[in-house]
């Protein structure tokens, strides 16, 4: 079988993976095990397809007739497809294994089978999206993905918050789909064919409209600010393994859409590249600033996904800038950094969502203010989460650093070139530095509040470690993060191919190993490891194991309690204030009137500014305007007959 037939088989099997389970008993865990097994097989076939593509190279697209008469659709695998396909296969496999224990069928009789069904459907649909070679196939798969996503978000639809999140998700999703329809309709109008191909004419208003629709439509799916409004609540309300898939790969489908459409353009105007860079930088900075203000662990992780989409967008902007100014080196570094960050984010963000899931499973709440000290009870989860947290901050020697250094190198290359028009782009570098420092603050806060210190509630004090089906996927993902970080060379061959594929022939001359200090990163990682071991050995030799223990020093105060610890809001207070112009925090301070005040409450939380200050008021205003139309709908038959008469008379007079 060719790689195309294999990938179609994989997608079909994945879409159907939950169907047999749906026919089995809802009380038995067998159905879930069966669905998991089928999905793993499907993903295995997908990996086989990737292997065939690697060996055989690109082959002609495979066309077959669509269910609509007279229309045929086609699939094709190229390097870009493979780069987005790999995270889909890895993350969904890990998620379905994790779900075996996290969302046990026997504990979730009502919705367990639904989760299996739609998780499989979403996996298959995403696989089809990245291999689709024409607009029709793409749209069909896109809509399947969006709808399965809706059912996954709405898994716990007895909770009103969940229903709200699902509504918001579907509204945003429909906006994205509408734009996607526009994109491919314009593609057809320009090229006269649905096939993915370079545009015949660029520089026309139609080509511009297509690019704009693609950026804003796919950007909505990806979560580029200010189109991110659906993302935090959907990620928070979905089951954690679903959030992992959504954040790890579903958002990347939006990125894929933008990247794919960018290949249709033979030339990229400089202004587009700069616009994408500005959007990416602002998305990254504001995304992580919002993350710092959150108390809900999953909302914080969701906002951090927005930040990472921003970093990916900066990489894309850099690549476009390289194309626009004829600097293939920038484009090469931009594409490699972007694609590597897509992989990295898929790895560490799904790891973090799994970790959050284990915590929620143990403590029974998403509120970080009632966690603390969990690493004593769940050491494996805590260690895996720490790996994810260090990786997502882009710190060496883990994988996040590798992708960020590629993007930085590209931005610094701009600074060293005499090109003046493009040089405004260098300001993305200090922006990225700010993002790195903010991410550090955010993830120290999350890790510290959840896993370190003393427990802030009864539940946190009595939590339990996650089972092995939950721990093993986390360990595998943490291992992948460490592997790419310590030996980044493993990623180089595929990155070389995708950069050459995206950029045309100009990039073929570049090899990542020559453009970036990949071997030195391994040397540094080894040096760090040796020094850490030496330091730890020194402390062990000095007897820290036998050291006596006492209370934490609290300036002589004799009865410290866990409530006296720094809380999530207090840790974030200064940063939330610095970004107050964007975050608009809701702070309710107690008014102290009496001499001996009792039981006052302080509350501070950060809502989504775009959603609560812009979108919701606008939709309310629009609804109010349309409500005037209801006067026409009085419900009396006479009135309706009257309308008909008026219209008929009007038409008679008109002609």
């Amino acid at each position, binding site marked *: 079988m060719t790689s195309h037939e294999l990938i179609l088989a994989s997608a079909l099997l994945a879409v159907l993976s939950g169907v047999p389970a749906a026919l089995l008993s809802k009380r038995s865990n067998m159905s879930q095990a069966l669905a998991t097994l089928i999905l793993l097989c499907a993903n295995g076939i997908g990996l086989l397809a990737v292997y065939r593509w690697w060996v055989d190279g690109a082959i002609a697209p495979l066309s077959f007739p669509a269910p609509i008469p007279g229309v045929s659709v086609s699939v094709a695998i190229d390097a870009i497809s493979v780069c987005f396909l790999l995270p889909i296969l890895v993350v969904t496999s890990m998620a379905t294994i994790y779900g075996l224990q996290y969302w046990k069928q026997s504990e979730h009789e009502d919705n367990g089978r639904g989760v299996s069904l739609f998780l499989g459907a979403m996996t298959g649909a995403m696989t089809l999206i990245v291999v689709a070679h024409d607009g029709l196939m793409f749209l069909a798969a896109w809509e399947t993905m969006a709808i399965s996503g809706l059912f996954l978000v709405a898994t716990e639809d007895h909770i009103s918050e969940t229903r709200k999140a699902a509504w918001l998700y579907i509204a945003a999703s429909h906006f994205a789909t509408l734009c996607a329809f526009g994109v491919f309709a314009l593609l057809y109008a320009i090229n006269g064919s649905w096939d993915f191909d370079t545009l015949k004419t660029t520089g026309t208003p139609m080509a511009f409209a297509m690019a704009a629709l693609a950026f804003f439509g796919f950007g909505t799916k990806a979560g580029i600010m200010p189109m991110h409004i659906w993302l935090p609540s959907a990620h928070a309300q979905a089951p954690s393994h679903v959030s992992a898939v959504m954040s790890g790969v579903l958002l990347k489908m939006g990125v894929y859409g933008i990247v794919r459409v960018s290949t249709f353009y033979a030339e990229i105007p400089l202004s587009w590249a700069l616009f994408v860079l500005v959007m990416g930088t602002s998305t990254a900075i504001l995304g992580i600033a919002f993350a710092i203000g959150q108390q809900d662990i999953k909302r914080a992780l969701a906002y951090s996904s927005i930040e990472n989409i921003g970093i990916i967008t900066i990489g894309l902007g850099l690549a476009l800038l390289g194309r626009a100014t004829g600097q293939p080196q920038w484009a090469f570094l931009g594409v490699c950094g972007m694609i590597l960050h897509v992989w990295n984010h898929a790895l560490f963000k799904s790891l973090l969502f799994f970790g959050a899931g284990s915590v929620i499973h143990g403590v029974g709440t998403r509120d970080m203010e009632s966690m603390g000290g969990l690493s004593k009870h769940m050491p494996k989860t805590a260690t895996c989460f720490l790996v994810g947290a260090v990786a997502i901050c882009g710190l060496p020697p883990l994988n996040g650093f590798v992708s960020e250094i590629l993007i930085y190198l590209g931005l610094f290359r701009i600074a060293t070139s005499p090109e003046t028009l493009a040089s405004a782009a260098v300001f993305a570098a200090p922006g990225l530095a700010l993002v790195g420092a903010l991410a550090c603050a955010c993830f120290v806060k999350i890790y510290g509040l959840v896993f370190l210190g003393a427990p802030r509630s009864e539940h946190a004090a009595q939590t339990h470690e996650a089972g092995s089906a939950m721990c093993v996927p986390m360990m595998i993902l943490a291992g992948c993060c460490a592997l790419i970080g310590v030996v980044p060379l493993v990623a180089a061959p595929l990155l070389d191919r995708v950069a050459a594929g995206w950029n045309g022939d100009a990039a073929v001359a570049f090899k990542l190993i020559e453009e970036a*200090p990949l071997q030195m990163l391994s040397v540094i990682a080894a040096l760090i490891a040796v020094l850490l071991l030496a330091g730890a050995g020194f402390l062990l030799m000095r007897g*820290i194991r036998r050291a006596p223990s006492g209370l934490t*020093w609290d300036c002589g105060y004799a009865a410290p309690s866990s409530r006296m610890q720094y809380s999530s809001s207090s840790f974030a207070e200064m940063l939330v204030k610095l970004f107050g112009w964007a975050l608009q925090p809701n702070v309710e301070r107690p008014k102290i009137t009496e001499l001996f005040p009792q039981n006052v409450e302080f509350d501070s939380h950060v809502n989504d500014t775009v959603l609560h200050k812009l979108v919701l008021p606008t939709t309310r205003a629009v609804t109010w305007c349309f409500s005037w139309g209801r006067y026409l709908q009085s419900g009396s038959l006479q009135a309706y007959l009257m309308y008909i008469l008026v219209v008929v008379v009007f038409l008679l007079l008109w002609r």
Partner: protein
Amino acid sequence: MFENLSIYTLVHIVVALVFPPFLLGVINRVKAIVGGRRGQPLLQTYFDLRKLFSKDSVFSETTTWVFRFGPVVSLTTAFVAVMIVPLGEANAPLAFTGDLILLAYVLGLGRFFTMAAALDTGSAFEGMGSAREATYACLAEPVMFLGLLVLARVTGTLSMSGLLGTGLLEGWGGAAASLILIMVSWFIVLLVENSRVPFDDPNTHLELTMIHEVMVLDHSGPAFGLILYGAAIKLFVFAALIVRLALPIHTGYAALDWSIFLAGTVVVAMLIGLVESIMARLRLPSIPNLLVGAGVLSLFSMILVLVKL
């Protein structure tokens, strides 16, 4: 990758390991003289380190391995950083294209674990210190990167050894104004990154007002020794950046180069001591203003070189 390995690498490592605590002694001596006192011995930090390394430790019951491991990470990262920055010779032992990004991020790794170790104690004091450190780092990091960008544009290289190498001499001819602005803002970054006055007072006695010292309040014995040593190396790294920025000369005589460089770091330490003697610590809410000010200076400097070259 070992082409740089030579006698200079050995000298680099020895100086980087032995010299940094001396700078803390210089700062204290300057403060003492300005304050009309005689002051501690110049080598006091070495005595302190020896004392701490031979002591036993006490650990809080709340803490986990993160607390015990934090000091090791902060020393390790400081050491990796000092291996990237060129000192007395032309090239640092770990010089490669893109090492400037590693320099900033490896120090970030150290900061991550220092802050996590602080939160591990479960005390509000350590929480405050860690929140402040996180906040000020967010403001200092972009300033650092703007400076790196300016130097990259002036010298046309992407390695610390190139950035602060002889190529900078031409920069002093053509873009002196930008470089002076960068020097000023990097000095401010030095003060905040190493928790000196006016951002933090390392000698204060009130936990509520501290940043770095309050984060390491609960560490004791050898672990605290590692932290102190790591902090000295970090100060040395930042001092080295400023000295190399001001004097990117390479005479060809190793002994002379090293003497000029070490004398330069002592001058930077004396400057820090003078700043600490004549300034009071800023109120915490006004610290961001100073850092944003430094950011604006480096933005000016960036715009100057963008327009000029």
